């Protein structure tokens, strides 16, 4: 079984961090880079599956040279090889485009299973997994707590809101987004990481994979980055639902949110 795990390197905030409003970013020296927590669980699920059922795990990331650190970690934790896709810099923060870049790299591998984390701890968009499934034309199951391969297909349990759990079956190949706390991610020892440097790590640019960037006018731009000021402006609406809906509509119009 060929399993691809998509991994993101995310920055973790240190004490006393601040936003740089000119560059619309957080200064890099105030961040420590680490593997996205959700992806750790996705990786563990993939490695476990390969260990018990046979097969290989390929770790893929879209990111700068520094992101190779998480690939070495993934290789130390049991991935067989790794691929880094150097992104089109302007689009590196756009989850839909990241998904398309990933798809360009993952598609030719013809994987049986693609695993992602539910979301990334930095932007928390939770978009890449589903978008990747769309770009690859594969079925997707999100917020997966457990998975098993059965009769050539997948049986998964999904976490729903309010403590409900859904059991679902889907055919292979497929894309899953894995929830945290669903397994026990292994540790990558220093020696393991050193030895992992002997494994294959390929670097390609997104463009070389045939990825064509979305037209600039369709690309969302980050316009402002700020720490929201905490204010108390809560208004409670009560009454029967149709009445509340009407009141809400009025408030939204009044605040200029909708025309």
């Amino acid at each position, binding site marked *: 079984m060929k399993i691809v795990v998509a991994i993101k390197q995310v920055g973790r905030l240190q*004490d006393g961090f601040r936003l740089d409003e000119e560059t619309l970013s957080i200064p890099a020296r105030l961040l420590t880079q680490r593997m996205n927590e959700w992806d750790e669980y996705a990786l563990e699920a993939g490695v476990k599956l390969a260990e018990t059922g046979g097969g290989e795990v390929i770790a893929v990331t879209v990111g700068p040279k520094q992101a190779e650190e998480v690939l070495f970690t993934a290789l130390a934790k049991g991935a067989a090889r790794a691929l880094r896709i150097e992104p089109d810099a302007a689009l590196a923060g756009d989850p839909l485009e990241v998904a398309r870049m990933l798809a360009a790299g993952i598609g030719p591998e013809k994987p049986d299973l693609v695993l992602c984390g539910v979301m990334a701890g930095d932007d928390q968009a939770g978009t890449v997994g589903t978008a990747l499934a769309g770009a690859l034309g594969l079925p997707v199951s999100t917020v997966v707590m457990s998975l098993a391969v059965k009769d050539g297909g997948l049986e998964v349990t999904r976490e729903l809101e309010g403590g409900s759990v859904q059991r679902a079956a889907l055919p292979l190949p497929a894309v899953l987004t894995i929830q945290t706390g669903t397994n026990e991610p*292994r540790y990558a*020892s220093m*020696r*393991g990481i050193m030895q992992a440097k002997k494994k294959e790590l390929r670097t390609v640019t997104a463009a070389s994979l045939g990825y064509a960037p979305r037209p600039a006018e369709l690309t969302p731009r980050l316009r402002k980055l700020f720490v929201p000021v905490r204010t108390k402006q809560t208004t409670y609406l009560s009454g029967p639902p149709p009445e509340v809906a009407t009141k809400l509509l009025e408030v939204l119009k009044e605040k200029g949110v909708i025309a």
Partner: protein
Amino acid sequence: MPDPISAEQMTRQVFRGLSHAQVAVFYAAAFLTIASLLWAVYAAVAKYRRGSQGQSEGGRRPDPWRALARVAGNVTIGRRHLLVGVAHFALFWGFLVLFAGTCILTLETDTPLHFWYGRFYLWYSLALDVLGVLFLGGLVALAVRRATRPRALSEARPAGLDAREARRARFGAENWGLLALLLVIGITGYLLEGLRLRADQPAWERAWSPVGWAAGRLLSAAGLSAAGANDAYVGSWWLHGVLSLAFVALLPYTKARHMVLDAINLGVSAPGAFAALPRLKEGEKAGYPVITSFHWKHLLSQDACIRCGRCEAACPATAAGRPLSPKQVILDLSEHATAALRPGPPWRKATGPTEPRAVPGEVIAEDTLWSCTTCGSCAETCPVGIDHVTQIVQMRRTLVEDGRLDRKVQEALMGIFEQGNALGEASGARGEWTRGLDFPVPDARTEAVDVLWWVGDVMSFDRRAQQSALALARVLHLAGVKFGILYDGERNDGNDVRRIGEEGLFEMLATSNVELLGACRFERIMTADPHALNALKNEYPQFGGSWQVLHHTELLAELIEAGRLSIAAPQRGRVTYHDPCHLSRYVGVVQPPRRVLAAAGAELAEMPRCGENTFCCGAGGGGFYREFPGDTTRPAVLRIHEAMEIRPAPQAFVVSCPMDLVMYSDAVKTAGVEKQLQVVEISELVASAVAAGALPAEPPPSRRMSA
């Protein structure tokens, strides 16, 4: 009265009353016994040869001559168990002399030598006669002790480990069987002598065989005639002889082997070896993945276990109800090794373990290995020189390489890798605590200092421990010590990283710290963190870093005794002092903190477990970074209970380790005694004692001693 006899006649017949055929049978039995013994020696040597070679320890080396003295004096047995030591000493020398007597007899009968008569014979008789009493006395004393069922001698396995009832039953039978066997051998020895003396009544022997003579008198008084004694002799001889041979034959297959193995083990092992762990071998799977990865000395030490249970009684993990008993770890390993490394015939070369089970995780459960705080109490108290700690850390190394460890410990390790500290703080903030001082602390990276203070993670970042750092800084400043710190150049010392089993990260830390220290100018290094102290002093030499390294209690004692600090306000409270395990057991600093307390005016009330026999707070070996939700009572809380039992009760619980400060500040709350017992770092007590207006008016709040 018999005629005076010549020296040649002063002897006895060796195979008295036995026919040639009987003697031949005895020799055949003796040869079989010796063959069995030789096979066991061969099997043992073959087994240990399949262990790994090279260094088993990373620093301290064995000292065979010192070990010989300790064996001869039964020193390690008598330590903290004087009566057991005395009984064993009697048994030990009694057995040794009786055994030597038997060997001398062999020289007389089976070699052309002829010396066993006259004066030699008389002294020989006297020596064996008297030492036999010691032998029996020691045996009886130890049997009585066993009969009172002391907890340490229990063969029960702690809850959480598989029961292994069959083994327990076998051990029980073995314990009593060997005692009984030796008792019967000793008693039949005297019976034989008594029968012979009753039959022959050689008056010249009376003074030289007092016990045997008394036995003869007793038999006579019981109505046994000389002829009757003569008739009973041969039967009794066979009983004594067969049982003696049986004991020799059983020796290698029962715990009686400790008579040989323990002397060897004490000779090849270094006391306190665990303070400097061995480095990893390049290109091999880390640690002890399978039984053949174990160092031959460790394989030998497992077989040396005599099941005295002292390690288990001392172990903080066992006391906290964790699934770890150091004794059972060693016994499980010994049992596994014996089964897996059973040798084939000598002409076939053995390869690999016959049973390739993974040792960490299968033979020894992961939870067992992670329960250990690496405090070293087991190895320190072991009378036969077993190093449990190094073996446990070696097995952890394998688990770490396989990525199998607690999530919180992983988090701490990643924090150390990324930020140089395990507390999740930014590396740049390491020196921030010095802002609480009204004088600058020199940066030892750029300025030459006398004392380079290695602050350590916990004192640098923990809010409570920072207060003790401030107190220490003020005291040093007052004493005019030119000291400096490394600010954000300092990274975690790696002592606990290494004991978690993350050797690769330890090597990285040690290398970078040694490099940094090598570029600084200083006379001595001082640290208040015993864990860092051990790394700096005992382990960094493996990475080329050798300096004079002091614990702050050593420096404080020195400053007070040199008159550089005067005690303006003696702290006349009653205190108890907790020895940090890394300070007393790893580095051997026991008296300096006591001298400091005495100089500061405090009245020291010791806990039962103190000095090298101290009890661990539970923070060692990575315990500081994780929870043990299964603990019945946490080790730190057990220790506070111990302190609360002192009468009259102490008002303060003095520590000299930042981890202790954190652990016990928490434990007094759990125990509900934070009002009665203050947890104080020794620098804080000294700061109060030297105060008298000399110190800034902002001593750490609520930490001063009440008089």
